């Protein structure tokens, strides 16, 4: 394992500290754990919290700030945070308007967030949650845990965060978050595995001509291993899976071409060149495109494509101001 770190045990905490020290006037870390909250708590709005394992930087701490999250909880790398950590985050940001947690659909995340929300309710804090499940690689069926939550989560933070900032009610913020979830789809791939610091070696091995299609964001293998293809062919495969899932034709979309952490921007731009052409060809109008590392798997090389089908409300909220380390509008 070759990493620029100090000690495996300290990775999560030092990372959160480093993030907070990059914007000390805007962010602070709770003493009790790896929780990032706004330096100046804003009252009179629904507090939005996200979180999950670490290793997805800049998610989620990087999205704390005006217009997006009020707090983010970071578990160990790729491990859901514990209920008491989440509970501390909820307590720190809770307002009279309540707290909405944005949870990605993983068994662990859901269980830990549910337990934390129960704890909060016991203390009369109004708290609720939504579950993001944008990953079309995994079939959503009664017989599975359903689709994973991946890069589309950022758009939930953005849009629900913008509505929360206006002072909307918990029910309204939850409703718009669920609208985003209903309209956002993602699919990803990787050409290299990543190495969890505590594991010390890559999660899987790929030959020089192989790639994993349908990966999540936890360094796990994808739904299938295939021969490496051209950027255009790969993008085509992912895009077709996405547009087959819900109907985007004639609609406006927000696009994320998301790097998994170790992908050079050069390659993401090359992918976007195809994505833009594909969408134009299909009669899908691009409202806005984000290209970069938004939801990563440590240093994995690969990318995901996210499409959010927008309506007027979502467009307005998408465009609203945001001032966070990882996303500014």
């Amino acid at each position, binding site marked *: 394992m070759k990493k620029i770190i100090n000690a495996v045990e300290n990775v999560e905490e030092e990372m959160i500290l480093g993030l907070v020290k990059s914007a000390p006037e805007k962010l602070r870390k709770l003493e009790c754990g790896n929780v990032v909250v706004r330096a100046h708590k804003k009252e009179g709005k629904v507090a939005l919290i996200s979180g999950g394992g670490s290793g997805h930087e800049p998610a989620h701490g990087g999205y704390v700030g005006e217009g997006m999250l009020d707090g983010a909880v970071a578990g160990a790398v790729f491990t859901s945070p514990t209920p008491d950590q989440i509970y501390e985050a909820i307590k720190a940001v809770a307002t009279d308007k309540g707290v909405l947690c944005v949870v990605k659909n993983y068994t662990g995340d859901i*269980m*830990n967030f549910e337990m934390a929300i129960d704890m909060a309710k016991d203390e009369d804090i109004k708290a609720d949650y939504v579950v993001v499940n944008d990953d079309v690689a995994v079939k959503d069926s009664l017989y599975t845990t359903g689709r994973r939550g991946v890069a589309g989560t950022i758009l939930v933070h953005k849009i629900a965060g913008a509505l929360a900032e206006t002072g909307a009610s918990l029910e309204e913020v939850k409703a718009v978050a669920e609208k985003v979830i209903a309209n956002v789809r993602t699919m990803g791939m990787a050409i290299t595995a990543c190495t969890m610091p505590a*594991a010390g070696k890559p999660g899987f091995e790929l030959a020089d001509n192989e790639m994993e299609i349908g990966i999540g964001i936890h360094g796990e293998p994808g739904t299938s291993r295939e021969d490496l293809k051209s950027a255009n062919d790969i993008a085509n495969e992912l895009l077709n899976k996405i547009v087959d899932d819900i109907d985007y034709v004639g609609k406006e979309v927000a696009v994320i071409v998301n790097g998994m952490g170790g992908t050079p921007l050069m390659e993401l731009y090359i992918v976007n060149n195809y994505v833009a052409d594909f969408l134009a060809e299909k009669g899908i109008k691009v409202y806005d495109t984000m290209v970069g590392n938004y939801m990563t798997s440590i240093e994995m090389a690969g990318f995901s494509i996210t499409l959010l089908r927008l309506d007027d409300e979502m467009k307005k909220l998408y465009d609203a101001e945001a001032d966070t380390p990882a996303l500014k509008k």
Partner: protein
Amino acid sequence: MITNDKTIEILKAIADRIEEQKDYLTELDNEIADGDHGVNMAKGFNAVAAKLPSMAGKDIGFMLKTTGMTLVSTVGGSAGPLYGTAFMKAGAVMKDKMEIDGSDLITALEAAIGGIKMRGKATTGEKTMLDAICPAYDAMKASIGDGEDMKTAVGKAVEAARAGVEYTKTIKATKGRASYIGDRSIGHQDPGATSSLYMFEVLLEHI
């Protein structure tokens, strides 16, 4: 009979076993999911081990509940809430007991399974810890029902758990992270079922 002192000994031995098998559990998790099961379980049980001295003299219900709460607040992931809830539920039904017998063990295990199912919404055959724990529970219950002693009953539970672990190799995961790789999970052994087996093995060694 398992006394409260014995319970401390067993919990310590579980912590040791998990620490010892940490890399192997992580390895198993790596093959089908995110490779953190060993590390996280070890973190949790080390935290439990650290609290054992302060539990001395307390009742078994308290010990199990403290273990559960400690797991919940240190393990994270899926295993944290699942094992945590299991121990907490078992603790609730063992409240005030300074020693427990075979039928208590069944009551405790039943509560634990209830907790896991309530939290994880899974059932057997989904390639999870339940595929070790449920058969172990059934075997133990039958054995005690047949009037066999606790040691024999736990021995049968271990056999059943071991068979359950083997069974997980043959099936596809439909719960937990391993479910995302679909058919590719077949052929691999479930890490959670494996850590459960260790707990039954340790129990057997200490009674």
